[in-house]
């Protein structure tokens, strides 16, 4: 279990964070760029000593300025997956994974055998001899994960693990990462600015804004009662639950079927849908969007330059559109509308 009270000043930012991650828990530290997420992660890893506070892992004090206690990064039982993975470019995938074992004094042959087992487990047996440069983004991420896990850490830190990937591979790698994270039993802390990553990967969200935690809770709580404008925007994501009804078809509890772009990860799936991805029409749309349904507006709420429109019907969701569109469609509570969404905008993951 990680217990971290972090106070540290970086440039103009003053970071004050009180954070706990339980054994077996996945916590996402979610916030906009510059909020101090990466600084918090670096402090926990020991790459940035804290000015004040106390960092403790499984009862061992790692950093406590008041008692001049500081455990060096290399002596902390913490694995880190860095933002762009930072695989050593001159070492093969295998030697990257074996690096931490060698650092702990394991004989070369032994370390390599162990590293090979990790690669096998993560489906990377084929690329053991490859240099990082020739790996795909998803492969590189898994090698980085294997490298971090091979040292048998008590805490796994992931810094924007999906940010370096392009949109196409991201969806698939996110599902993979979720599966692999599930096999690790220590505490896991994930830093991200992407609410979809957070919702898909984390058990609990911690929202960090401008160096302070503004909200913490399970995704449903945060979604239901966002404590700040940022949180509202961030987690205003529609979460839908359903079951597989075909290779790329999900049947929701209401019986409505939605078509998604990629093969489903399992029989029971959750779908994340951004409010901005929902288009509203007066009449039934014809043409490309395969997913469309009739709905009734239950609430219209202006939010600065955007308007959030809550829809009742077969797909309970909130759409976010421009004030101009609201005027054109003449939307008020009770207005019947047609909603549509493209298959690629439906992010699925295993429940």
């Amino acid at each position, binding site marked *: 279990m990680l217990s971290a009270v972090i106070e540290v000043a970086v440039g103009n930012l003053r970071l004050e964070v009180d954070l706990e991650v339980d054994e077996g828990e996945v916590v996402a530290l979610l916030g906009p760029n510059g909020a101090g997420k990466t600084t918090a992660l670096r402090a926990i890893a020991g790459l940035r000593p804290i000015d004040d506070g106390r960092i403790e892992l499984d009862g061992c004090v790692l950093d406590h300025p008041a008692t001049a206690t500081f455990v060096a990064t*290399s002596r902390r039982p913490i694995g880190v997956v860095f933002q762009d993975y*930072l695989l050593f470019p001159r070492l093969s995938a295998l030697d990257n994974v074996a690096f931490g074992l060698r*650092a702990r004094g394991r004989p070369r042959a032994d370390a390599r055998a162990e590293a090979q087992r990790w690669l096998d487990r993560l489906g990377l047996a084929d690329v053991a001899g490859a240099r990082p440069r020739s790996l795909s983004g998803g492969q590189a991420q898994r090698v980085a994960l294997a490298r971090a896990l091979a*040292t048998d850490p008590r805490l796994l830190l992931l810094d924007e693990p999906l940010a370096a990937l392009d949109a196409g591979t991201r969806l698939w790698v996110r599902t993979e990462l979720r599966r692999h994270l599930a096999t690790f039993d220590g505490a896991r802390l994930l830093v991200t600015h992407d609410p979809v990553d957070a919702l898909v990967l984390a058990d609990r969200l911690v929202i960090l804004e401008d160096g302070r935690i503004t909200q913490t809770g399970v995704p449903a709580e945060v979604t239901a009662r966002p404590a700040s404008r940022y949180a509202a925007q961030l987690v205003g994501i529609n979460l839908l639950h359903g079951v597989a009804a075909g290779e790329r078809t999900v049947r929701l509890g209401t019986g409505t079927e939605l078509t998604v772009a990629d093969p489903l990860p399992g029989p029971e799936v959750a779908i994340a849908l951004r409010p901005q991805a929902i288009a509203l029409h007066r009449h039934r749309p014809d043409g490309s969007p395969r997913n469309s349904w009739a709905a009734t507006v239950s609430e219209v709420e202006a939010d600065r330059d955007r308007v959030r429109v809550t829809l009742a019907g077969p797909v309970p969701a909130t759409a976010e559109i421009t004030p101009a569109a609201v005027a054109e469609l003449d939307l008020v509570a009770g207005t019947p509308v047609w909603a549509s969404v493209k298959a690629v905008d439906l992010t699925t993951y295993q429940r």
Partner: protein
Amino acid sequence: MKPRVGQRRRPRSARAPWLIGPLAALAVAYIAVPFVALLQRAPWTNLGEAVRQPVVTDALRLSLVTAFAATGFSLLVGIPLAWVLARTRFPGRSATRALITLPMVLPPVVGGAALLFAFGRQGMLGGPVATATGFLLPFSVWGVVAANTFVAMPFLVVTVEAGLRAADARYEDAAATLGASRGMIFWRVTVPHAAPSIIAGAVLCWARALGEFGATVTFAGNLQGRTQTMPLAVFLALETDREAAIALSLVLIAVSLAVLLPLRDRWLGT
């Protein structure tokens, strides 16, 4: 696996902007013409004979040995210095960086005289050492190495420091999170990452040491087989026999090319 993005066909090499090509050609010509002129004056028929003279073989051997020794010593202390300059902050860092480049601007003869005042028999440090142990740097092979190192090491330090600055220090962080000790991080991560700049710096350092004249003659003197390097032999040959001097220069050029070309291909070029 999946096809990687960005496989759009691209021209094999960049098209030069306006004037760049002619200016680059001018640069090449400016360096090449004097060498062509030198080759034109070369006594090709006597070349083999000139190379076999003991004075030449002695000087060549000494030049190679001392240039490699100076490069080795520069690597030993220069890489750590470059690391300290690139990765740490301490008062006087700028002054240290300026100091380390001084030998590059100092006339080598003055550098040699400064070495004498420091490490000579009557020197600030050399005096007490000579009194205590009888060890003397001037007029010995070590003196040549010392002079070469003084003049050539800055090239290594400046190059490696630039390389370390350009390298991503987060790889060192990554190694630390994997449990690597500071020593292991330095040798397994920092040094391999800086390898291209270390090789480039070592090449510059070696080449400068091989051609070093002023500081060597001033500090170490000139004695065949002990302190007479190729540049000294060339200079003295010029006193009596210009053709012999040109022949010796060609030998020096050929040997340095033989050492540098494979390195360039392997480490610095593509």
